[in-house]
């Protein structure tokens, strides 16, 4: 067996875990890491028996809190095992490594996602996306969503990075909805939906959620589709609100402000249930007090109000969730019946004369093996949003620990640097084909595919590959350009030692900080007559003490 990740790596990456390698791993050739998120890592692999087939393997880490398989993974497995649809990502296999208790989901690999496609058009070709492509993507997205909704499944985390588009091959240009980590069946729920905490990334979050609506419906997905539609047209996120992090409720004033500025102020006449939404009532002076000018959606998306595309968009961005267009209705909309008609291959228009945009392939970090040996950072960053689109704003009740808040900035920088180094190596290996970085002279199938895009990839790297939660990207890009000139300026060894020092220093500070705050809080609870100190430890480990009493 060959382990590509290690053999093409720097050599310092020792193969510690080969002895506990599970059997199922033999059927794959690991190519490298393509993404990272709260849940774990995503890898690109090829099936040995069928070299042409690429697989994205999502590895779920075992959570440290003794919670077993994460509810995110359970949801994803549960739903994706039941459903099959052209426009929904296909779960090919599930694997378990019993030794380190990690879970692997193998998906059909998709080369592109809307986040990358939009970014490519905005930053590289400076040109709007072909109307045929926009329409085909939207139609397929709605088609997949209609299937989900008719099966009582709400996605709850639609955003460009979660909408995948298949690369070269039989299914080229087919749109796939991915990341079901927040999705759930909403028929006859045992617990109210609100129990799942904050859902949907802020820029795509619907006003009823922002205003604290507890009984939301599948219309929240349609709002997100509307936002994505506008983004496909203008290449800019429609409502780019600043997120106030770490609030446990979905209310985000700035996001609402951005929405109202474009769509006008919602009124109780147009949206009768508005009056019942918690934040509409409580934040009178902020929301109700401020007056907004007349709506100007058409000028933002540069469409004439008579354009069917505009009509569809405005129906998706309807304030009242009960009046908002459903996926089934949207598929019947006039917009999809006029030329150019939507097609299965969204990337290549049927007319021969049209220019085809070659989108860059996903960068692969060939230094990381399945154990994630080179990326041990405890941060919750998501680099390239691959199968799952990385970071959820705040997943189910897993409120970020204080250490994430404090150490975030520095960790990000380190990770970036490390990623940069990794990509630098990867591309060297790819170009050399058998140079110093690839002593085994192993053919790099990935490198060949990547070569035509080499230049683009390097550009991509420069403006911040390994980007975490989408809304933060701007500030990060600036930081990076000032601090890192080019990925080649660093050697891997150099980085490693540099990184190690700073990483542990930061870590120590965070731990100290957490300990102190914990202590203070426990004191606080004691004063509030909530018993914490001796008893909490006592109850936390019933096995050792309680049983004897």
């Amino acid at each position, binding site marked *: 067996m060959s382990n590509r990740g290690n053999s093409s790596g720097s050599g310092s990456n020792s193969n510690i875990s080969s002895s506990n390698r599970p059997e199922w791993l033999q059927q794959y050739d690991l190519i490298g890491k393509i993404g990272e998120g709260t849940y774990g890592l995503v890898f690109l692999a090829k099936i040995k028996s069928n070299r042409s087939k690429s697989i994205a393997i999502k590895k779920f880490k075992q959570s440290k809190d003794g919670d*077993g398989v994460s509810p995110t993974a359970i949801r994803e497995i549960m*739903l994706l095992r039941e459903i099959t649809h052209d426009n929904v990502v296909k779960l090919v296999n599930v694997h378990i490594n019993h030794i380190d208790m990690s879970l692997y989901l193998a998906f059909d690999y998709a080369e592109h996602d809307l986040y990358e496609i939009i970014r490519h058009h905005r930053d590289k070709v400076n040109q709007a996306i072909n109307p045929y492509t926009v329409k085909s993507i939207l139609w397929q997205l709605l088609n997949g969503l209609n299937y989900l909704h008719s099966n009582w499944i709400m996605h709850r985390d639609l955003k460009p990075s979660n909408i995948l588009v298949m690369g070269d091959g039989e299914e080229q240009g087919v749109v796939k909805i991915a990341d079901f980590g927040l999705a759930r069946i909403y028929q006859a729920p045992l617990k109210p939906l609100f129990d799942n905490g904050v859902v949907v990334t802020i820029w795509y979050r619907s006003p009823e959620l922002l205003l604290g609506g507890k009984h939301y419906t599948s219309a929240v997905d349609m709002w997100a589709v509307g936002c994505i539609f506008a983004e496909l047209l203008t290449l800019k996120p429609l409502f780019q609100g600043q997120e106030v992090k770490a609030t446990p409720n979905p209310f985000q004033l700035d996001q609402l402000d951005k929405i109202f500025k474009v769509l006008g102020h919602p009124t109780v006449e147009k949206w009768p249930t508005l009056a019942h939404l918690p934040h509409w009532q409580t934040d009178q002076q902020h929301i109700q007090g401020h007056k907004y000018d007349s709506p100007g959606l058409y000028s933002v998306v540069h469409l004439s109000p008579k354009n069917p595309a505009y009509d569809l968009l405005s129906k998706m961005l309807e304030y009242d969730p009960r009046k908002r267009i459903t996926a089934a209705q949207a598929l019947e909309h006039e917009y999809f019946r006029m030329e150019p008609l939507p097609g299965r291959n969204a990337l290549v228009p049927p007319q021969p004369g049209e220019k085809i945009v070659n989108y860059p392939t996903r960068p692969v970090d060939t230094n990381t093996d399945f154990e994630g040996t080179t990326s041990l950072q405890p941060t919750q960053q998501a680099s390239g949003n691959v199968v799952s689109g990385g970071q959820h704003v705040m997943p189910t*009740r897993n409120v970020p620990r204080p250490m994430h808040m404090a150490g975030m900035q520095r960790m990000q920088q380190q990770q970036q640097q490390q990623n940069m180094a990794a990509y630098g190596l990867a591309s060297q290996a790819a170009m050399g084909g058998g140079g110093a970085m690839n002593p085994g002279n192993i053919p790099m199938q990935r490198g060949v595919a990547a070569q035509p895009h080499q230049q683009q990839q390097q550009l991509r790297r420069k403006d911040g590959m390994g980007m975490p939660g989408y809304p933060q990207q701007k500030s990060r890009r600036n930081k990076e350009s000032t601090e890192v000139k080019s990925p080649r300026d660093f050697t891997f060894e150099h980085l490693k030692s540099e990184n190690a020092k700073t990483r542990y220093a930061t870590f120590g500070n965070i731990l100290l900080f957490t300990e102190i705050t914990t202590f*203070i809080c426990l004191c606080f609870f004691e004063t509030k007559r909530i018993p914490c100190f001796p008893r909490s430890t006592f109850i936390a480990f019933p096995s050792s003490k309680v049983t004897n009493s």
Partner: protein
Amino acid sequence: MIQDMHQSIEIIYLILSPFFKLFRHKKKKTCAFHPHRRYNLSSAFSLPSPPLPRWCSVPPSHTTGNSKKWRNFCAFLPATMATDFWTSTHYKQLLDQEDVDVVHSLDKERGITLEDFKLIKLHMTNYIVRLAQNVKVRQRVVATAVTYMRRAYTRRSMVEYDPRLVAPTCLYLASKAEESTVQARLLVFYIKKLYADEKYRYEIKEILEMEMKILEALNYYLVVFHPYRALSQLLQDAGMSDATQMIWGLINDTYKMDLILIYPPHLIALACIYVASMFKDKDNTSWFEQLRVDMNMVEKIATEILDFYDYHKTISEEKVNAAMLKLTMRM
């Protein structure tokens, strides 16, 4: 800094809240363990009925058919269940009785007969129910957990997968799948409290390891459909709303058999209604006819349920203990 403090308090509270809960539970007096109450013959009629499942409206695409009655039936039966029952993995996985009644070869070596096998599964069903009552989860979670346990033993042996570990693990997994997660440590806590027997004691780590094995044994199919789903609508339609509690209890008892592995859930619900109509001496023949379901099947299930109640009388504590002992005995 002040804002950070504020965050931390919330977070710490979130971390600690399970302990508070635990503390509350601890104070409460729980009833002592009565071995004889476990096989209460009339449990169908004595079990308290949990609140009925909330009902949502029906997707319009599924309401096509001929008569109004048939339309109604289609509307609230399998097609409306979370995903379409007839395309679900639950439907595809339904087995024949003969396939369910296979004792694993490893278990056979220990001298476990088919009767022992069924007894142990029944015993473990009761175990899950007891645990669930303590950790307070809804009946649907219990039903899913029992289904997982029974499905797992169609593929795995009891020698390798100790039922006393599998049962709580199934409850743990089911609580996650049904979106009402129970903390593993809470389960461990109650296991210790309920059973003095060392053999029942398992640690959190073992439950988490078994969770993965169960996932594997279930072939990662986690969606289960239950007869409860359509019940209130069906009963209203049949004019039997007064018997809801009794039928709910009957359905609970069907999980002590393997019916859920063999028959579609709506037929199990109908069979329970059928049994209840017999008890109540209510003639529902015309109502059943209008439903256009295979009445032979319904009657067959109903007979199995009645047979089970007869068989139930013959079960004694000793029999169960003997069966469990065979499991632990080393050859």
